[in-house]
């Protein structure tokens, strides 16, 4: 893989996007839809981290990067919780 961090970030984003779509396709099969949904949200969180760090340059500001990662992490947990509620109340 290339050593250029920007190119590497782009390749990681492509990989994670492909993984999200693949996971969504699998959700139509025999895999648990809820589990797949959680993975799709995790991939989205990972993509957001890459964009913040490499595209938006927060790797230069570790304190801010950590803050954004935590806030996004909690937000991701909120989305996962909201997504899973119907599965548990059905």
């Amino acid at each position: 893989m290339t050593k250029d961090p920007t190119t590497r970030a782009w390749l990681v984003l492509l990989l994670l996007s492909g993984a999200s779509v693949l996971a969504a396709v699998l959700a139509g099969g025999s895999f648990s839809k809820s589990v797949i949904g959680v993975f799709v949200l995790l991939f989205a969180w990972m993509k957001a981290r890459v964009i913040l760090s490499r595209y938006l340059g927060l790797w230069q500001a570790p304190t801010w990067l950590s803050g954004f990662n935590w806030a996004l992490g909690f937000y991701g947990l909120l989305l996962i919780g909201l997504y899973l509620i119907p599965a548990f109340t059905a």
Partner: protein
Amino acid sequence: MVSGSVTQARSGTLDELPGDLMMWVLIISELLVFGAGLAAFLGVRITDPAGFAEARSHLHPALAGINTIVLITSGFLAARALDLRLKKGRAAARLHLGAAMVLGTVFLVIKGYEYADVAGQGISTETHPLFTFYYLLTGFHAAHVVAGIAILALIAWKDAPRNIEVGTAFWHMVDLVWVLLFPVIYLLG
């Protein structure tokens, strides 16, 4: 913002932020607005998960997936433009910004096709709550893409490194919002 911030000799936690502080205020504001919208979307889905699943089947996740590739590649080109400008590659930087704008336009064309198809099925904002959020959130995002293309054109013209750093930050924000919006609306709804 990729190879190193243009702003030099600053100190303090707030000043660690690369680029312009006001652009970060804008980025955080936009994330809060779209974040609240997506949380509300999943909140409303709790009341009618089966209806949301049926409504989602009328959307085009494949086209949205292609648009994800288009937008993150456009973001990559914008990021490379700053790298190149900092290394004195002025023409190459402009070329990359131009390519990023073209991909932004491709995104809008695909989005337009998608809207036309969904509307052609007789679906409006009133049809189901999913479509209310769909039109509202993706439409608001598309408006940001239009603004982002205009900003990319502006910084390709006035191509000081600082301008490119701030302008591409807006484009990356548009990218960031889309990677959160795409899975929630198109894959999980």
